[in-house]
């Protein structure tokens, strides 16, 4: 059987949207291999979320237990591996989020599987699937073949549409969870970065600031709020402690592909471009006319961001 299992991600009583993108990747794979689509949902008190997943047409396996309250890789991996075996999954995938990247390699090791990270699309013929993925900070695209019987992957959510409700509704199956004995990982705390703004990876517009802000993100945030946009940042701004880690866009931060990306005071190092060059329209505002960011920007404005951004913010407000 070449069934496909997608691992769902949830938090704060809600499904993470990235999961719906991973499900549509899973659905594409299942169509290729002629297998069925399954979803694994783990956590505590997550049963109410199963129906939304079943509405995509997937068979949903719910493992609901106090021991699974936090997504600890060594607690979750054996449960997911068991679900994968039970449903005959030849492909096991998830969204390439922090959780997906932490968890799936551990699941892969448990299943004796090879794995492809941050998959952008599938190639090959029919059931002989290859995985397209970025290497060297997105400067190279690789077509990768996985030789193990079970193949594990994470997908870049921006490359797949969000799954819509399917023609049929899948069944929901409860999974009996064996509490892993001798677990040596303990969840101590989670400090949420709260924001009224849209989530960075899902926003239609992103306004990002870099070293050029000199630590003053007010003009960046004001423009973002006028546009209903998410705020991003370059590594330099995050390293300096000016903004939370969670805002970093780039090879080692988040990958975004909004309709509009405004890079303010960001020079455009390769590592940053890797995280945003899939954006539809890129605007760069920078004092330095030779900044590399201008080479990929659709519209470049050589100007001081402290003057240009407030002026643009006024324009946006006036147009409403």
């Amino acid at each position: 059987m070449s069934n496909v299992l997608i691992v769902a991600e949830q938090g704060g009583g809600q499904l993470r949207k990235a999961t719906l993108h991973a499900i549509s990747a899973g659905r594409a794979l299942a169509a290729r291999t002629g297998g069925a689509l399954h979803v694994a949902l783990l956590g505590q008190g997550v049963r109410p979320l199963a129906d939304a997943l079943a509405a995509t047409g997937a068979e949903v396996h719910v493992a609901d237990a106090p021991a699974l309250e936090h997504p600890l890789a060594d607690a979750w991996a054996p449960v997911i591996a068991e679900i994968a075996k039970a449903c005959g999954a030849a492909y096991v995938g998830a969204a390439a989020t922090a959780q997906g990247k932490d968890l799936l390699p551990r699941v892969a090791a448990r299943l004796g599987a090879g794995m492809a990270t941050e998959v952008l699309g599938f190639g090959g013929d029919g059931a002989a699937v290859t995985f397209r993925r970025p290497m060297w900070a997105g400067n190279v695209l690789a077509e990768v073949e996985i030789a193990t019987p079970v193949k594990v992957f994470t997908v870049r959510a921006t490359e797949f549409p969000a799954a819509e409700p399917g023609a049929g509704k899948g069944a929901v199956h409860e999974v009996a969870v064996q509490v892993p004995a001798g677990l040596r990982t303990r969840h101590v705390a989670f400090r949420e970065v709260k924001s009224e703004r849209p989530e960075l990876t899902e926003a239609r517009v992103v306004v990002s600031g870099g070293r050029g802000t000199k630590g003053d993100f007010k003009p960046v945030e004001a423009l973002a709020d006028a546009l209903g946009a998410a705020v991003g940042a370059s590594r330099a701004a995050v390293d300096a402690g000016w903004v939370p880690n969670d805002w970093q866009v780039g090879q080692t931060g988040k990958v975004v592909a909004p309709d509009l990306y405004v890079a303010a005071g960001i020079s455009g190092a390769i590592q940053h471009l890797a995280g945003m060059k899939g954006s539809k329209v890129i605007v760069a505002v920078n004092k330095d006319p030779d900044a590399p960011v201008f080479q990929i920007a659709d519209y470049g404005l050589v100007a001081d961001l402290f003057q240009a951004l407030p002026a643009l913010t006024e324009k946006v407000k006036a147009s409403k």
Partner: protein
Amino acid sequence: MALKIVVTAKRVEDPESKIRVKPDGSGIVTDGVNYKINPFDEIAVEEALRLKERHGGEVVVASIGGERSQTEIRAALAMGADRGILVRHDGPLDPVVVSALLAKVVEQEKPDLVILGKQSIDDDQNQAGQYLAERLGWPQGTFASKTESLESEAEQKKEPGLVLSADGKALTVVREVDGGVETLELGLPAVVTTDLRLNKPRFASLPGIMKAKKKPLQELAAASLGVDLAPQVVVKRLSEPPARKGGVKVADVEELWKKLHDEAKVL
């Protein structure tokens, strides 16, 4: 409370190098490309050294690759690591094979802690640490970071971000995750992978470089370790992503607004 730590030092293309794909898609052009320790591994070495400076112990650097990977091991020894292990293997590797070979190094060394970079900047897989943890049956703390910024006082004082418990049996790890920061406590032995903001790695001093030449470097032949060396993840073909065309420069905010509003219609 001495800690024995194994850290990794993968040889990768310098991130500042321009990466080009060979016309036949079989690999990248290596002419004119410089090599160095994977930046995340450099952070792993730094963290191990800080833990040793605080608690005592030993830092062993492991690398898997061809003879040239000695350079990266020596670079880590110059930073202050005690000795090196090169697992000699010429040819393609994947995280399945790498983690199997690292597990052999762990079997030999029996460390309290293994620290790896969260990903190597060439294949960007972000897998080896997690595979290794599962193989060993150890807890994992991926994407380790710390609460203070890289310009903070704690960072100037080179304090470790990983905090050892009073009884020396557990390690507290602050992790960068989506939507916030998570803190985990791992019973030792454990595997940790580093994120960018765990620390700022030190530079090797000249005396450090001189000393590094005399530090022990053991070579193990990968073929003799009883590990299946056939990669299970095979790169069939490389290509360059479609280039993004640079656009136009606009004169002022007025023109930028018009372009976004009338031409691109995104506002």
